């Protein structure tokens, strides 16, 4: 069986290089994902594809790099950085052409070589600030 860290790394990085098949390959059918930017839990490979695709549509040149990983038991924690230029609509924000860099942490639980559960926390507010979507009040 492939190394758990490698499985998770591929799942985080490869959809952004055009390989969406990796989701079907590495996400279990009963997958459930939790992300503060998603109003409901993300369910199954189809739900994961929809969630990722909305950001790829917003940042078509986007890339995610896994910077660090820790594995224990059936879980892998990954610290990652995402970079991209917003040339598509994302979160209701019209394309700005601005470059954005955000970081996040994903904890993945694996079962039989597939990811079945994930908890992600990422810098959503940082993305909104960088895109200018959060109003910039005057400094005191």
């Amino acid at each position, binding site marked *: 069986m492939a190394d758990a860290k490698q499985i998770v790394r591929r799942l985080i990085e490869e959809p952004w290089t055009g390989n969406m098949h990796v989701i079907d390959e590495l996400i279990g059918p009963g997958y459930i994902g939790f992300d503060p930017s998603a109003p409901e839990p993300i369910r199954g490979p189809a739900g994961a594809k929809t969630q990722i695709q909305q950001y790829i549509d917003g940042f078509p040149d986007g890339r995610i790099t896994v910077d660090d990983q820790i594995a224990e038991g059936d879980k892998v924690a990954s610290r990652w950085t995402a970079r991209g230029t917003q040339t598509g*609509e994302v979160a209701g924000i019209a394309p700005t052409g601005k470059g954005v*860099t955000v970081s996040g942490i994903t904890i993945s639980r694996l079962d039989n070589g597939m990811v079945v559960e994930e908890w992600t926390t990422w810098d959503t507010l940082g993305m909104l600030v960088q895109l200018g979507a959060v109003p*910039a009040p005057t400094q005191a």
Partner: protein
Amino acid sequence: MEGPLRRPLDVAGSESETAKDGFPEIAMSSFFASRHMPCADCGASVAAEERDEHTCDPERVLEFRLFQLRDGVAGFDTDLRGYLDSPEGRFEQWLAERDRPSS
């Protein structure tokens, strides 16, 4: 449902009034400031510790400005066709044709 609330939020350049040294002045800075911010001139994502050394790539500046003008660029042909079809445009074409030097 279409309507004002469904329209994408157009924030491009909205912080330009508060731009300082090419970077937007971030509100609530004591509370929250992103470590990376896009350069107001070229749109590149620049880390806070690299802001002083950041130099815009002229090609990126051009691409960034063209991107922000994309609606105007895309609408130019349509606007031109509309103008040429208007009474004023037709007259201008007639005048230009009349004044064109014969070869």
